[in-house]
């Protein structure tokens, strides 16, 4: 006699774990997140402190490098390692903030649009269409133009860029669920719209939303870095990885590490999140749907 | 069995998918113009047997046979190019779900013309003329308009006729039909079967009809082969086999037909399920479910003898 089947969440975890790439990525991401969280204690120096005597010092494994600055210093003598660690806080924090800021209202709007097909949906979706007419980076640039640059505004700008995607996705997923019998049954049993939305329909839409959230996260890191690079995002002396690259360009030839390291940090983080997203997509979709 | 070159001569065909033996030592012979039915439930290996003959079994399937002859040539010894010259031309296959078996991006006319171009070198106006001829042959009305339609614009029955037209385009010696009517309405079923019968008798074309529906076999075929769990368990002429089945499985199949169960509260059915990849019995594959099984049945595999694979065929006096 077979044992009772595992819950869909357990099964999903098992299939996720079977994907070696995704599992490794999860490990790497956990390390990065940990490093970012513990930056204040791990960083050997203050990230904005300039050591005038040690400008453009190479990393410790190269000629002229020293243990004091393990990854070298930038053009203003600031320690690279410390800046990278603190930059991690900023990038991951921005990623998380913008995902939350776009996902929560976006999903809500999508659900409302699905449940009010005739009244509110056309208005909501038209507005989303306009927002989607611009590539998200350009939309973010628009918002920055109005609000001005800076850390908080960057999060808002990126969130606004990601919002329509969540709305569309939530609406499509909700519409698919609404057509199914269990929703009709619930409605006949007297469940109100609110209950239907959150207790019945939403849990069954989670799979694509979670996958989109992870891709949104990596996209946010890239957008934040792009905005920082253009001088429109996080402003110096804050150590956002993209912002670090903005001034690094002039030192490409003689101080390559100033260019290579922040970019590598972005690449590794984004890659890790994307691999996790891929793994989630493979693991979640069929499992959670079957459980409905 | 007449001497001379048979249309199809299969000996010891085995098809394995990893640890699953889908076809287990099947021998089958078909004469020119003969109509054979292959019956069995899902998973009996009836489709795979014919797919193996058509050389359509791909990785990870492995096909082995002592003999896989068509018109006297062993298909396993032909080069890929030689094989491709035979398939679709002298030997053709029609599949179950016609809509998904046709390419959605090309018109039905273009897909039929493709076969004509590939095997007969027909092009342009000549090809077009032949396409219309074929469509009329399979009784599609308004052939000119239909030839330029896409599969999704035609009904299931019409798509099936298109598939048949595609298959008979080069006047094949053998047509294999894999459950061609299962997805269709009963009235359309009857029409398609009548069409196949007519084509077979008019053109002297051999026909293999793969189905799980015994009524189809009774109406259409001259001989029938019954398959169970990858093995051929009984073979015989059509009215005779149904009047007096010899293998317990055939007997059970017939007993389960609704018409034979009038007035009963439940349909008769064999207990148990078909063996899968990991629980194939050492002896007769039906033994675990067979009401007449004795020790010998559980210990030894019965060989195919006089058209039946059983130590204790029904209707025969016990030794």
């Amino acid at each position, binding site marked *: 006699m077979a044992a009772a089947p595992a819950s869909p969440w357990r099964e999903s975890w098992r299939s996720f774990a079977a994907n070696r790439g995704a599992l490794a990525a999860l490990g790497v991401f956990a390390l990065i997140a940990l490093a970012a969280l513990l930056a204040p204690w791990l960083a050997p120096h203050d990230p904005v402190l300039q050591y005038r005597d040690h400008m453009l010092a190479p990393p410790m494994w190269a000629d002229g490098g020293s243990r004091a600055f393990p990854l070298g210093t930038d053009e203003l003598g600031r320690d690279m390692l410390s800046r990278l660690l603190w930059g991690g806080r900023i990038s991951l924090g921005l990623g998380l903030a913008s995902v939350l800021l776009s996902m929560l209202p976006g999903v809500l709007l999508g659900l409302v649009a699905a449940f009010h097909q005739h009244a509110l949906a056309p208005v909501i979706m038209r507005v989303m269409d306009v927002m989607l*007419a611009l590539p998200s980076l350009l939309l973010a640039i628009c918002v920055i*133009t109005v609000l001005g640059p800076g850390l908080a505004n960057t999060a808002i700008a990126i969130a606004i860029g990601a919002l329509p995607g969540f709305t569309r996705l939530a609406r499509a997923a909700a519409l698919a669920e609404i057509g199914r019998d269990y929703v009709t049954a619930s409605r006949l049993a007297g469940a109100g719209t609110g209950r239907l939305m959150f207790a019945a329909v939403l849990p069954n839409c989670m799979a694509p939303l979670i996958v989109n959230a992870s891709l949104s996260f990596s996209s946010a890191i890239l957008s934040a870095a*792009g905005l920082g690079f253009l001088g429109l995002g996080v402003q110096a002396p804050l150590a956002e990885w993209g912002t670090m690259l903005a001034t690094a360009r002039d030192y490409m030839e003689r101080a390559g590490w100033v260019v290579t390291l922040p970019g590598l940090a972005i690449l590794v983080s984004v890659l890790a999140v994307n691999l996790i997203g*891929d793994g989630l997509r493979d693991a979640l979709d069929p499992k959670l749907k079957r459980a409905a | 069995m007449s001497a001379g070159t048979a249309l199809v001569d299969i000996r010891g065909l085995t098809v394995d998918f990893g640890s699953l033996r889908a076809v287990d030592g099947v021998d089958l012979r078909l004469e020119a113009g003969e109509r054979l039915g292959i019956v069995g439930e899902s998973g009996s290996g009836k489709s795979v047997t014919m797919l193996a003959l058509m050389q359509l079994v791909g990785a990870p399937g492995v096909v082995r046979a002592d003999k896989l002859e068509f018109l006297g040539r062993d298909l396993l010894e032909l080069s890929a190019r030689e094989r491709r010259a035979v398939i679709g031309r002298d030997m053709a296959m029609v599949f179950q779900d016609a809509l998904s078996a046709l390419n*959605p991006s090309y018109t039905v006319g273009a897909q039929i013309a493709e076969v004509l171009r590939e095997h007969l070198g027909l092009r342009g106006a000549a090809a077009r003329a032949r396409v219309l001829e074929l469509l009329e042959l399979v009784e599609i009305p308004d052939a000119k308009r239909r030839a330029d339609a*896409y599969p999704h614009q035609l009904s299931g029955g019409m798509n099936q006729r298109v598939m048949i037209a595609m298959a008979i385009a080069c006047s094949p010696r053998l047509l294999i039909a894999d459950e061609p009517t299962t997805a269709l309405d009963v009235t359309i079923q009857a029409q398609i079967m009548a069409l196949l019968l007519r084509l077979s008798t008019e053109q002297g074309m051999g026909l293999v009809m793969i189905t799980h529906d015994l009524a189809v076999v009774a109406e259409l075929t001259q001989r029938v082969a019954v398959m169970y769990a990858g093995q051929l368990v009984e073979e015989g002429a059509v009215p005779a086999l149904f009047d007096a089945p010899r293998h317990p499985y055939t007997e059970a199949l017939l007993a389960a037909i609704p018409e034979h169960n009038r007035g009963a509260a439940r349909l008769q059915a064999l207990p148990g399920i078909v063996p899968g990849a990991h629980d194939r019995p050492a002896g007769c594959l039906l033994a675990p479910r067979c009401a007449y099984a004795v020790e010998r049945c559980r210990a030894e595999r019965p060989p195919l003898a006089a058209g039946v694979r059983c130590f204790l065929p029904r209707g025969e006096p016990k030794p």
Partner: protein
Amino acid sequence: MLQFLFKRLAALLPTLVGVTLVAFGLIRLVPGDPIEIMMGERGLDAQTHAEVAHRLGLDRPLWAQYLHYVNQLVHGDLGQSLVSHAPVADEFKVLFPATVELAGFALLLAIVLGLLLGLLASLKRGSWLDQGVMSLATIGYSIPVFWWGLILIMFFSVDLSWTPVAGRIAVEYDVPRVTGFMLVDTLLSGEPGAFGSAVSHLLLPGLVLGTSTLAVIARMTRSSMLEVLREDYVRTARAKGLSSTRVLVVHALRNALIPVLTVVGLQTGSLLAGAVLTETIFSWPGIGKWLIDAISRRDYPVVQAGILISALTFIAVNLGVDLLYGVVNPRMRSNH
């Protein structure tokens, strides 16, 4: 077909209106006095203030201003740059072809290489080739485009001196402007070596910009092919005795490309965004760099125009993809 086009355009109308509203509203949302912003000066005296307000139509009600703005747009008037005082439309006409050339080249590269790699990966599923291509693809769309550009410049331009560092053509060439597309103009000019110089300047930026799209197309092609190869009609094609090549290309690939088409449409958005970053790195004189410079110089009419044009381009490309999709996928067409 024409009917389909009109229906789509009609459906797009609200979106187009919305986009013009956004562009219109952009300047007015920026904190500060719009007149001072438009003039680029502060502390105007009351009389100049009123004069300018009247001249620019800023003393009229908002809806009237909006209609005036749309009217100007329809006549091709995008306003005047606050920095150069030249009509924005003129600057735009010079710069747009450069971006189109860059993005077009990047897209072409991405499609050709992406399809090829995706196809190969799908045919050799599970092999080293497949895993290698897919790993590279995942890295390809995870890499920040501006950093990728810097790295390639460091390697190819600085270390190896294989490719130039900036601009569209070497300084010594003076190519008369005919179409604005350097590849065309150099051929027309007949100057020896000019075409080659134009190509070598286009290579690296095009590669950098196209990498992410290449990766996405490769992945999409592979997964689409794998799905299609499982379809019944592929088996039917084999049952017809057709050659492997024909089955693959005529039957499988033809259908596998359909989802890839929609991806291409969406990717033009990221190409536009990527162009902004790529042009900045390679000092490529296109509208991306123009936009960014305008933002830092607070040249709001230019920003407004840049955003509007980007949105319109994106909408136009997606409309094109929609139409193409209807052609390529017969199931989308209405029944007889």
